[in-house]
């Protein structure tokens, strides 16, 4: 039997057999409510779906939707008393649902869809489902085993914290991301770009400034952050300064490398047209350097956030993501720490994604993006 047939069969069998065992604690499979009826119907439906002969896309959707219903059932069970005491029935059922969702997503990702719009939707749906499923597994494990919140709070707890403290999180986000990170990133990358052009133009600077940049980038952040606080005060400018230090060198090195990326042929060509330094720079060397420059911009987008958060551990006003994390850890409010981490993760990924999107637009000619048309 191939894996493609095994997973849906396991999904049906596991969920069916699970009904014979206790879901754990006070919870019962059949308490007469609508939720328990659905839980009982899921295995029947999964077994029926096993013989279904629809297209891959439909089959995938059916499995994902049934899996989603089953997840709601399981969450209900936790609510009804299985939390912290989940039994064999609960985990068997969970495994069955896992197999069902896996098979569903597998079908969806393999499905051949004619319409371009639907295909795009599918390409978005599959990673989204994957992300949601990770959260579901996290939630079920945390609450099923009753893992202490200090060790790992469930996503729902973190979500609740985000909802309840949104004003505080927003203030921290403004302080750390919108001020320190963005300003530091812009100054760091911008000045490194201009320095790179200068270094490229003046040969002795290449020998002098590049090693200097190297030394600065090697400085430990725990050493520079307090010094920046001394220089620029407790508020965000000292954090922006740390971000400048962290982002400067990657941008400098990459831009200098990018500026020498154009070949002899291309430069001879510009020379044969009697093009000047600036014309050659703007029409040939900078476009050629763009992939390198965007590399640095992408690396720096995540470095900047890390730098700003860590810098706040060394003296800060009573606001900011790093400040919040360091104080709430001490007060054992780990859900707040996780909430800040979630905000940082979303903000960092969005920032990176935005830079990558701009890169795609500007360097669509590059072999890694180009498409024959």
């Amino acid at each position, binding site marked *: 039997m191939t894996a493609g047939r095994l997973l849906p069969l396991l999904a049906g069998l596991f969920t069916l057999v699970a009904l014979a065992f206790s879901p754990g604690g006070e919870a019962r499979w059949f308490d007469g409510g609508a939720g328990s009826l659905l839980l009982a119907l899921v295995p029947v439906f999964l077994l029926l779906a096993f013989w279904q002969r629809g297209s891959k896309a439909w089959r995938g959707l059916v499995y994902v939707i049934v899996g989603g219903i089953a997840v709601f059932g399981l969450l209900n069970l936790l609510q009804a008393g299985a939390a912290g005491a989940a039994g064999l029935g609960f985990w068997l059922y969970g495994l069955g649902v896992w197999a069902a969702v896996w098979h569903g997503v597998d079908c969806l990702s393999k499905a051949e869809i004619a319409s371009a719009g639907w295909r795009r939707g599918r390409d978005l749906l599959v990673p989204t489902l994957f992300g949601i499923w990770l959260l579901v597994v996290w939630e079920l494990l945390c609450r099923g085993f009753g893992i202490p919140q200090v060790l790992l709070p469930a996503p729902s707890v973190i979500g609740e914290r985000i909802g309840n403290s949104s004003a505080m999180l927003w203030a921290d986000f403004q302080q750390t991301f919108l001020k320190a990170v963005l300003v530091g990133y812009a100054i760091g990358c911008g000045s490194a770009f201009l320095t790179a052009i200068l270094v490229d133009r003046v040969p002795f600077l290449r020998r002098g400034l590049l090693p200097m940049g190297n030394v600065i980038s090697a400085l430990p952040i725990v050493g520079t952050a307090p010094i920046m606080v001394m220089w620029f005060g407790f508020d965000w400018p000292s954090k922006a300064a740390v971000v400048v230090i962290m982002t400067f060198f990657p941008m400098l090195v990459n831009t200098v490398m990018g500026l020498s990326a154009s*070949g002899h*042929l*291309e430069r*001879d*060509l*510009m*020379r*044969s*047209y*009697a*093009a000047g330094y600036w*014309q050659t720079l703007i*029409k*040939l060397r900078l*476009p050629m350097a763009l992939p390198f420059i965007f590399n640095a911009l992408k690396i720096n987008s995540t470095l900047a956030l890390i730098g700003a958060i860590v810098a706040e551990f060394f003296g800060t006003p009573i606001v900011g993501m790093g400040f919040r994390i360091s104080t709430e850890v001490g007060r054992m409010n780990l859900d707040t720490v996780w909430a800040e981490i979630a905000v940082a993760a979303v903000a960092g990924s969005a920032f990176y994604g935005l830079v990558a999107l701009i890169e795609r637009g500007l*360097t669509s*000619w*590059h*072999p890694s993006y*180009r498409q*024959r*048309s």
Partner: protein
Amino acid sequence: MARNGVERAVDVRDLSLTFQTADGPVYALSQVNLEVKAGDFVSFIGPSGCGKTTLMRVIADLEQPTGGNITVNGVSPQEARLARAYGYVFQAPALYPWRSIERNVALPLEIMGLGREERRERARKYLELVNLTGFDKKYPWQLSGGMQQRASIARALCFDPDLLLMDEPFGALDEIVRDHLNEQLLQLWDKTGKTVVFVTHSIPEAVFLSTHIVVMSPRPGRIIDIIESPLPRERPLDIRESPEFLEVAQRVREGLRAGHSYDE
């Protein structure tokens, strides 16, 4: 002939060029004398290392000679370059991948500071001349190698230079495409009346295209023979089977053999 009244497009007197390398001096060119009349089609032929590309690069002011005199259009190569007297076609198309074909062809016009409308008009005109009408919005990587090289020829012609310098432009292409492009190049030369200097190491290509064939030899790079072709300007592809053609080809081959030492 030439529009500024200069009969000699290129005049080379006792030219030599020595590269100083870690292994001692390399004599790339030694005592080279050459005269290219306006409107000629001159080919440099010889084995690798005979200095044919170097000589062309000296004409283009991409390389500085260490001895002798050279004038291009009656002035120094540098003045000629700054006056945009020549269009250079390299071994590879060297089209910029972030520019469409039309914007690639218009690149020299952009550097010269021409207006948008005129750039577009000229680019279209020269793309038509190399049979690339309709490809102006494509990107270089969407075109075949032969089409890319044709676009690069259009780019070299679009600012209307007196001289066209071509350094093994078809070397990387297969023979069928090459034959086709050779034929087109002759028509282009006939239509535009440009002076063409052409580097190749293919004997049939040199004989088929040229009014004058300059046979060169390595170590040190020098001119062995300059052959004036008896073939008419009008040359269909099957002229390559005519006795005159074979006779010239034979003379080129003998020149190459005489200049080539087998003792290494």
